[in-house]
């Protein structure tokens, strides 16, 4: 594990919202919470490259943005897996084709593993309109992970899941993060998500990152020493 392979030091402006985040962390599971309009989704969109931002951004050991050097990777080049609140499945493609969209070849073993993990195996040949919202959300998760991204950005990925499956998904996502050793930034309002998953729990208020205290010490190593946070208030 490289130390501080992730560095987010960005500022962005979206209408009335001024986003200002400064944090360094290991490849860890980070839960982000905060009130509506606080800037959680905007932060993820900036990280994905979908919104313009200034500053420095390094995720999974890879540099994405350094505005002082005039360097910025496009969303296509960032190889991040994203799940947004709108799953954006293409209606004319089967679930399987949606998941492998854009991949050069089909890795059937990996695809089957992901289908199992997100409990969508029986849905693979169906079209998106035949799925429930919760099923579509799990397909979007599988799609985000299929291309083996160097980081995951998840915007309330369990919001449409029933409690029982939600717990299973948490545990699988957790072991997946530990296995792949990639940074996962997940927006969630569910205290249980934070309890089970978070190496760090970030709270965003009015565009500012307030705390990034480790939720508990299961992260391995000593997370306290790995965190540098600027308090902007």
């Amino acid at each position, binding site marked *: 594990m490289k130390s501080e392979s992730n560095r987010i030091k960005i500022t962005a402006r979206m209408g009335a919202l001024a986003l200002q985040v400064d944090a360094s962390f290991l490849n860890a599971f980070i839960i982000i919470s905060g009130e509506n309009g606080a800037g959680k989704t905007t932060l993820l969109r900036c990280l994905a490259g979908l919104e313009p931002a200034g500053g420095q951004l390094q995720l999974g050991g890879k540099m994405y943005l350094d505005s002082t050097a005039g360097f910025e990777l496009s969303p296509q080049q960032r190889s991040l897996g994203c799940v947004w609140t709108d799953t*954006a499945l293409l209606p004319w493609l089967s679930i399987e084709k949606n998941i492998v969209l854009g991949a050069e070849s089909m890795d059937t073993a990996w695809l089957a593993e992901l289908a199992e993990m997100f409990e969508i195996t029986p849905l693979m040949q169906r079209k*998106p309109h035949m799925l429930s919202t919760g099923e579509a959300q799990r397909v979007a998760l599988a*799609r985000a992970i299929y291309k083996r991204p160097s980081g995951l950005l998840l915007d309330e990925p369990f919001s449409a899941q029933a409690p029982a499956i939600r717990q299973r998904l948490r545990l699988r996502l957790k072991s997946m993060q530990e296995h792949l050793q990639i940074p996962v930034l997940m927006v969630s309002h569910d205290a249980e998500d934070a309890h089970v998953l978070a190496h760090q729990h970030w709270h965003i208020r009015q565009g500012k990152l307030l705390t990034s205290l480790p939720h508990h010490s299961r992260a391995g190593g000593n997370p306290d020493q790995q965190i540098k946070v600027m308090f902007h208030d």
Partner: protein
Amino acid sequence: MIESLLISLQLALVTTVILLLIALPLAYVLAFKTFPGRTALEVIVALPLVLPPTVLGYFVLVMIAPDSIVGGAWQSIFDSSLAFSFSGMVVASVLYSLPFAVQPVQQALRAIPVNWLEMARTQGLNLKQTLLQVMLPAAKGGVLVAAALSFAHTMGEFGVVLMVGGSIPGETKVASIALFDMVEMQQTDQAWILALILLAVSFVMLSLVYMVNRHGPDMGVSQ
């Protein structure tokens, strides 16, 4: 009569194919790009909607006359005149039906949900993949409408093809002009048949357009 119908069908088919090749990139640029002269380009594309066909036909005729740059080049390459030829009619028809091909595709591209395009970007699709695997399937209905309207509109041309083609029997005399001649010569029975055939073609093409617009192309419900 059959002869003129075949010329019309051939002209409509060739024109539609060429129009789609031109309209797809043009509609893409107009739908997604901002650049100086964008409005002017949109106006030029839309001009044939309001321009009298004879005006368009006159300009095309001047443009492709043997003593013009385009017409002269054609003459030296193919050793035949572009004016008063089938090829000349194709040039005129492409210009005349341009808005009918570009606008449906442009609207269909603009109607693609933004989050589909963002998904394509974060999933790492390059431009070619995005065009072929996301945009084109999503805009399929618009492309179908464009093809149907281009075909029907070219079948229904009169003024432009008369100016540019010159109504040469067996070469440039299309069905709509043949109908005019039949009426002039009081061949009422033949005129009736030809008129009904042209009406049927238009009816079928427009039915296709309305069916596509109602049902959408294999879209299902967006999640």
